[in-house]
């Protein structure tokens, strides 16, 4: 831990610059979120209020009205005043009220959906990266071999398949034809939610197909990138020297070739991790999986603007946070970053 700390302090200049960027990006995201409804023709906040009143059949409370105005625009205040209101609203974690699920606050719905997405997309992203990278190293190391000659074109095809379509196919084959997996949802609705074995089992049962399709359609991209980087790295002098040293092929492959070839891939991985939250939007929709993606889909279908805005803001901030964490990790992985930074 101590070495980690010293490394980080030494390289603080690089990180400080990145942190500055992410703060600016976060500000931009919030600004965008603020501006979008205000740039649109008409008056979204009035429309939302009307919609709310229509759905609930009662007058919208004054408090809710203020909150909606703060988020979606107040025709009676100037832009600066609106922005101040908007920020105050956000700082309380208030993302507005869902139109469809009135009067449940958007934030609550988001918090409910988040764990599902994190579980599904988080694990699959890591798995796909691990499988793809490992196979990519092997294919690149044995470039031109039969394994490489088969694996590489095949994954080229895989990585070009739209993943929601793979999801549809999988659902049809495994859910419909074979009947091995449930057709929708993230858990068995008949079971009580909680930490019971049966419940966990149902979560697993519902999750396995979406997870498999995500891994299946995502690992090819990692494989291809890693293969080409490995082929390039294998021809570096330090790999040649490692072979000249008589080290075992395994050691040369992993500690010398793969370790360096991974660095660019890792940046991509960071981005993918950031994308986890917004992640496999379409896959979630195909499987009606109760995650963030599905939430956004429902919001879009029903033009639930508060929900759309809230989910989008959350996704953006998550991406930024993940990128920042990735930068931190990168500093540890590549000792040269200090020299460059």
């Amino acid at each position, binding site marked *: 831990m101590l070495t980690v700390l010293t490394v980080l302090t030494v390289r603080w200049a690089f990180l400080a610059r990145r942190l500055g960027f992410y703060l600016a990006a976060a500000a931009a995201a919030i600004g965008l979120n603020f501006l979008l409804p205000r740039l649109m023709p008409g008056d979204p906040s009035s429309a939302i209020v009307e919609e709310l009143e229509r759905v609930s059949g009662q007058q919208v409370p004054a408090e809710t009205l203020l909150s909606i105005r703060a988020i979606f625009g107040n025709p009676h205040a100037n832009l600066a005043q609106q922005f101040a209101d908007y920020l105050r609203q956000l700082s309380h974690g208030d993302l507005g009220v869902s139109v469809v699920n009135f009067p449940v606050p958007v934030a609550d719905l988001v918090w409910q959906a988040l764990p599902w997405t994190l579980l599904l997309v988080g694990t699959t992203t890591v798995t796909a990266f691990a499988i793809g990278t490992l196979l990519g190293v092997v294919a690149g190391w044995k470039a*031109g071999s039969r394994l490489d000659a088969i694996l590489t074109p095949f994954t080229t095809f895989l990585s070009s398949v739209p993943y929601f379509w793979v999801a549809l196919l999988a659902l049809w084959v495994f859910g419909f034809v074979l009947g091995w997996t449930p057709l929708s949802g993230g858990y068995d609705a008949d079971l009580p939610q909680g930490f019971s074995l049966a419940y966990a089992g149902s979560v697993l049962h519902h999750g396995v197909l979406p997870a498999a399709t995500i891994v299946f359609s995502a690992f090819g991209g990692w494989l291809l990138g890693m293969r080409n980087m490995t082929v390039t790295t294998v*021809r*570096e*002098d*330090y790999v*040649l*020297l*490692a*072979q*000249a*040293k*008589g*080290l*075992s092929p395994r*050691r040369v492959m992993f*500690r*010398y070739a793969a*370790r*360096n070839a991974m*660095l660019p891939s890792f940046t991509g991985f960071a981005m993918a991790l950031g994308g986890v939250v917004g992640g496999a939007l379409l896959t979630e929709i195909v499987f009606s999986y109760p995650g963030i993606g599905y939430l956004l889909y429902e919001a879009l279908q029903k033009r639930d603007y508060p929900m759309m805005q809230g989910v989008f803001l959350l996704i953006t901030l998550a991406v930024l946070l993940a990128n920042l964490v990735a930068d931190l990790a990168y500093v540890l*992985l*590549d*000792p*040269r970053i200090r*020299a460059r930074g």
Partner: protein
Amino acid sequence: MSVLTVEGLTVEYVTGDRPVRACDDVSFELRRGEILGVAGESGSGKSTLITALTRLQRPPAVTTAGRIEFHGTDLVGLAPDQLRKLRWTSLAIVLQSAMDALNPVMRVGAQFVDVLRTHDKTLNSKAAWARAAELLGMVGISADRVRAYPHELSGGMRQRASIALALACGPELVVMDEPTTAVDVVMQRQILAQVLRLRKELGFAVVFVTHDLSLLLELADRIAIMYGGRIVEIGTAESLYTKPRHPYTRGLRDSFPPLRSELRTLTGIPGSPPDLRDPPPGCAFHPRCPDRFDGCDQQRPGLVTIEDHAVACRLYPSGDDQS
């Protein structure tokens, strides 16, 4: 006694429509503790020779003929496992740029430790790190730099570190590929002084490959001159300098302006080095040769030993001309 005997070594690149022969029928012998200089320009085949000698070549390079006999074992046909045992304990290499030759994400010491422990299973980690520091000390790098990353060392230090690395397992033969091209003359002299001192202490032989003949004339015991993939002349440094027989050797020697003796206009060797993809027929040097005569563009001369050195030129005829 000879450490290394190379006989008829031929290396081809099998890209394109026809193979490109980068090393053609190369033969030489290296004695214990000797420094053999190999001098050549671009396209001479000297880099190909290095990877072939050390069995580090990759597709599309292939050794198509010849033997590399190292203590009675032919390296060309050796199984990978057998070869791996010989590596570094008997045969080590120093590459041109230490910046590229050291793994950028591993500490310098760790790159010593892994090779030390691979070849000596009894060595524990602590002892290996201590030995790494000791080896660095041998080339004048302080022990605390053992935990540095390559980019944290200066160019000169990195180059010394890779020389120390080459000596880690006490090899009998070190192949050096332009080990001082990346450093300046002052540093070059200091590094070479160290190499000579260490050779005296440890007794390893060196194949020193470079384009800088003037340096070899001072450093090497014997020198092989390569041109167009073949050795055109080989002999002691002294005799090559005072009595170069091959017109190319003479031209190359006279391509280095003198530092002290009186200046006169020198011309180097007009023309360009041969393109190995499309080599000239006969003697590869004939298009640039000031002394060429009838038949040089058809017959390729073989090496002929005259007094103290061997030369491949039709000015020095022998019976075994190849056409």
